[in-house]
């Protein structure tokens, strides 16, 4: 349906009163549209407003101003129990005094679904999260991973319009978390329900999401596909938060067409492609990922900067080199250890040339 989103946040503001009496905007005029069937992540550091946004969609918090539409219906002031969304809580929040079956059936019971129908759908839900035969267990008897799946089943059994997940994998160990990431993604594709996933783990967001909103200090800084967010970060915060990156401060010398020439004081010139226009003398920051930099493989039409290796860190698949150009400028370079020879490109103290194409970096302005 044209113009109808699963969730639409319009100019949403949420202010909290701090204990000192000040006003803290936890969510600061956020606009967001989440499409039907999308796996959408809210990504950011703690305190960025991602959880508050999720809680406003769930109905646990009411926005100070602005509106939240669920399937085109204004819902920002509707109490939680009347909203067609379900939540998977960070600490699962399973009811400890009920069996697994009673937990999963709770939402259906509230809707007045009969006992027989309920039992059938609970069994299906358990099947879906691959925990059949667990119906009569107490939740305390289950492992963290199992509780996680029960929480998921308890939410999905209600066939919500949108499933909200608040860092659901945070309490699991790394290996189980990786497994669950893929499983969640597969499950989401199968059931076709819109997922809104809150996480502070950028790798998790990149792995699972169709689209990501990067948040900081209550604002949505950039909303886009994982590739967009990674390749074309909108600002310094996004570039820094998503993956590893290098920043080189300089100023614009000139621009011809889409090529911008930048002066990096103490280490020479760099040419960077950009679709934007810059003025001469404008301070800019070049941001470029470590894996886009190369050691001692000068490019004919690229940027080649001279530096000295300060550190060499071996990390299995890759080796990371810390290279200093000048007092102000330092980069990390990542080289894959595909062959034995590549492992030994440079040693600490070596003079090297760091190269990158003009299309690799992004130009950021303050």
């Amino acid at each position, binding site marked *: 349906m044209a113009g109808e989103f699963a969730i639409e946040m319009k100019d949403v503001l949420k202010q909290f009163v701090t204990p000192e009496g000040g006003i803290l905007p936890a969510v600061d005029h956020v606009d967001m549209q989440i499409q039907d069937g999308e796996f959408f992540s809210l990504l950011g550091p703690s305190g960025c407003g991602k959880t508050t946004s999720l809680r406003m969609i*769930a109905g646990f918090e009411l926005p100070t101003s602005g509106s939240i539409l669920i399937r085109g219906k204004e819902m920002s002031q509707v*109490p939680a129990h009347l909203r067609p969304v379900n939540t998977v*809580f960070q*600490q699962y929040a399973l009811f400890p*005094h009920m069996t697994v079956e009673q937990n999963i059936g709770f939402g259906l019971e509230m809707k007045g679904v009969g006992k027989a129908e309920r039992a059938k759908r609970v069994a299906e839900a358990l099947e879906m999260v691959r925990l059949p035969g667990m119906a009569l267990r107490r939740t305390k008897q289950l492992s963290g991973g199992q509780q996680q799946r029960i929480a998921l089943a308890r939410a999905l059994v*209600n066939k919500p319009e949108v499933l909200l997940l608040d860092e659901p994998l945070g309490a699991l160990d790394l290996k189980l978390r990786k497994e669950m990431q893929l499983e969640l993604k597969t499950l989401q594709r199968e059931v076709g329900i819109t997922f809104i996933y809150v996480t502070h783990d950028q790798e998790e967001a990149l792995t699972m999401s169709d689209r990501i909103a990067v948040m900081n200090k209550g604002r949505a800084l950039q909303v886009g596909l994982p590739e967009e967010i990674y390749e074309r970060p909108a600002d310094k915060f996004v570039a820094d938060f998503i993956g590893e990156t290098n920043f080189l401060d300089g100023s614009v010398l000139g621009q011809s067409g889409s090529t911008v020439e930048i002066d990096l004081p103490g280490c020479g010139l760099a040419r960077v492609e950009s679709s934007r226009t810059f003025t001469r003398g404008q301070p800019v920051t070049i941001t470029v990922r470590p894996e886009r930099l190369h050691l001692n493989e000068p490019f004919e039409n690229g940027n080649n900067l001279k530096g000295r290796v300060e550190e060499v860190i071996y990390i299995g698949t890759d080796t990371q080199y810390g290279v200093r150009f000048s007092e102000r400028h330092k980069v990390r370079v990542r080289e894959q250890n595909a062959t034995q020879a590549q492992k030994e490109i440079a040693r600490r103290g070596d003079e090297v040339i760091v190269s990158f194409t003009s299309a690799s970096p992004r130009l950021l302005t303050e």
Partner: protein
Amino acid sequence: MLNFFRGNKKRQLFGLISPGALWILLFFNLPLLIMLFISFAERGRTGGIASPVVYTLENYKQFFNACVSQYAGPQCDPFLYLGIFGSSVRIAFVVTFFCILAGYPLAYFMARQKPLWRDTLMLLVIIPFWTNFLVRTYALKTVMSGEGLINTILMNLGLISAPLEMMFNEFGVIVGLVYGYLPFAVLPMYTSVEKFDHSLMEAAADLGAPPSRAFWRVMLPMTMPGVIAALVLVFVPVVGAFITPDIMGGGKVEMIGTLINRQFGVARNWPFGSAMSLILMVLVLLGVIYYFRSSSEETRRAM
């Protein structure tokens, strides 16, 4: 002396335990045995028991079938004392009910406050404990009596023409008992509510439960251990209460406690008083055991 304990764990443990254990043995267990003994004896003329001791079951029979000598022979009423016991149980249930009804929201409210404010409120609940119970009950009397505060205000406002009879009846006794035992209900329920994870209420709401259903299905069952502790802590002493029924009832409301009290006082019938005390104890104990047997496993474990 100290060498006796040095380096000997068993002796140290013995030394630490014995003061408390001796106290309980001497002043709780032993008197209970003495009471058991007295309850099977015949009464003495001026209190105490008849000497030489004559063993009898009369005191227990008396409770279940009270007989009084009349011109036309012994007149028996099997429900005289059982009736008083029954009304004591009924009053205790009413008092417990109101203590829990009033205490639960208070406990909830306190548990949801910020720590500093919470501690202040806690103190306000506990302070009455530090005031003499008798003084408190007399204070309540001055508020509720015929010329008391409430009646004076209502009369002066012209809302009533004659004083309300709020004392020397069951109403007065119940108000006095609820007033006296409310803190006993608040404290255990506070502990339970404070431990309750409030995100479970959000989970319930999220799954479509309106606040009232979330309360009945999630919060109340999960805080049940506190409610049951409150029930036991209020019900047991109230069944046997005698000061409050005495003052607030003015001798017109008979409870098992006042009856027992009288046996050791004016009636000078120690054996009958002892027998009634033991019957009360056993019946209350049976009641509590039955309650725990029939309540859920979880509640029992929490106690």
